[in-house]
């Protein structure tokens, strides 16, 4: 413990030379100057250690005892810090760093959005920026309630928003609206008609009258479930039967045969890099972009633009609003190259299969499918023929 205290307060090793160095020791004791590690290496030489703060005035004591005083070494924090006394650049840097910490902590440097799932964070950030919250804005001057209210006016998909300022970080917590379920307008009357040609395999009528039977072949537009219910008159009545209009409801499943085609040219135009490229740099500080390239143009007719951005990131992943951006423009020319037929056919088949699944939706299934490929007029055409089971009916309002 004593060593730690001595290290913190600092100490000086002194060498006292003279006829009676013990007098110096006695004077130190009288003056209340604490000393330790006393050594008497020679008859007229005395070495001792005193605290850093007691070193002043000891030369006067040495003079009074007819001794000479030499400093043999220094230890501890105060002499270490004193080394930097004349390092002005370091002191200026330290002062600037402290100023930067004090001043920059008053500004918002990071805006974080939490709680969004479907609304992109960038959309929310853009609206907040319009409302006045962006990296680089002076934090104490912000009215977070006004900002969140103004941003909410333009964000229809959000139900709630709160802006919390934590020093340099603005935390934006949002809650999204729960999507309203799709409502079926049962007041609209009409029929269910066939959407695609096929053979009806299953009928399930919930409202209305079945217009076809299972096993029937239907064409697009044929009525499958009629939106009117026949109401027979009472027995022995002479009145004709009446028809009550309803909204036809039900499910009609059937087998269908789908044919789809897609083609691709057998010669494709590709980019061939010429080797010429140009890079320009820009700096983004607190949302303000500084271009180093002014208005210099791009000397290529056709080029690819590749942008790389390096953000200043603190340990822990906090991204600060300071970034360097490099944009590289690489010149290219168009060149025609033959397309590999097998790969092109495989790609088209895959796309057609995906299109078919999308067309059938969640209720439809593919029973069997086959592809055929034809090379014609410099293009490869792939045709898909598939047998499916799917929902045939589609509601059509009367009128």
């Amino acid at each position, binding site marked *: 413990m004593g060593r730690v205290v001595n290290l913190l307060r600092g100490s000086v090793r002194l060498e006292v030379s003279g006829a009676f160095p*013990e007098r110096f020791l006695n004077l130190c004791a009288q003056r209340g100057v604490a000393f330790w590690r006393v050594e008497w290496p020679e008859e007229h030489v005395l070495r001792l250690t005193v605290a850093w703060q007691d070193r002043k005035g000891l030369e006067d004591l040495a003079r009074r005892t007819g001794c000479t005083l030499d400093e043999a070494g220094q230890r501890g924090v105060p002499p270490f810090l004193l080394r930097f006394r004349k390092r002005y650049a370091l002191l200026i840097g330290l002062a600037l760093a402290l100023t930067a910490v004090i001043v920059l902590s008053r500004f918002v440097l990071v805006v974080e959005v939490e709680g969004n799932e479907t609304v992109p964070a960038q959309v929310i950030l853009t609206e907040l920026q319009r409302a006045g919250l962006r990296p680089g804005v002076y934090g104490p001057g912000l009215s977070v309630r006004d900002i969140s209210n103004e941003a909410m006016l333009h964000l229809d998909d959000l139900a709630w928003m709160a802006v919390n300022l934590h020093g340099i970080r603005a935390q934006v917590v949002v809650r999204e609206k729960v999507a309203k379920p799709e409502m079926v307008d049962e007041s609209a009357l009409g029929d269910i008609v066939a959407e695609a040609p096929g053979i009806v395999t299953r009928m399930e009528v919930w409202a209305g009258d079945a217009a076809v039977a299972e096993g029937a072949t239907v064409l697009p537009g044929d009525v499958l479930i009629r939106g009117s219910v026949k109401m027979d008159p009472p027995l022995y009545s002479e009145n004709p039967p009446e028809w009550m209009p309803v909204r036809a409801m039900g499910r009609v499943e059937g087998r269908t045969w789908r044919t789809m085609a897609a083609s691709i040219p057998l010669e494709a135009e590709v980019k061939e890099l010429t080797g010429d490229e140009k890079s320009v740099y820009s700096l983004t500080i607190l949302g303000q972009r500084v271009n180093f390239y002014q208005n210099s143009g791009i000397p290529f007719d056709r080029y690819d633009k590749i942008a790389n951005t390096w953000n200043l990131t603190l340990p822990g992943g906090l991204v600060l609003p300071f970034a360097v951006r490099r944009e590289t423009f690489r010149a290219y020319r168009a060149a025609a190259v033959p397309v590999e037929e097998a790969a092109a056919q495989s790609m088209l088949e895959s796309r057609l299969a995906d299109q078919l699944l999308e067309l059938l939706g969640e209720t439809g299934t593919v029973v069997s499918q086959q592809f055929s490929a034809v090379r014609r007029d410099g293009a490869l055409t792939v045709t898909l023929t598939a047998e499916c089971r799917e929902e045939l009916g589609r509601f059509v309002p009367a009128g």
Partner: protein
Amino acid sequence: MERKPKKEGLLEKTAQALDLPGEVVGLPRVEIVGRQELRMENHRGILAYGPEEILISGGKLIIKVRGTGLELKAMNAGELLITGMLLSVELT
């Protein structure tokens, strides 16, 4: 220099007459703890110092401390502490 012994003599007599402890009236007091530590109050300063011998002024008397590895551990105007292997303490 002539008045100081008179004063101490007077102090000793006063202490004896009033039946007071000597250190109360400023007489040196030496305390030895085992063989490793010597404390002294009311000293008048160090006269000589070395790892084997330390001479301390006690006013009228001189205390000669002999030993090995002697070290003046702490000292102020009235008290001092010597550590090391003490072999003898001699009053002259």
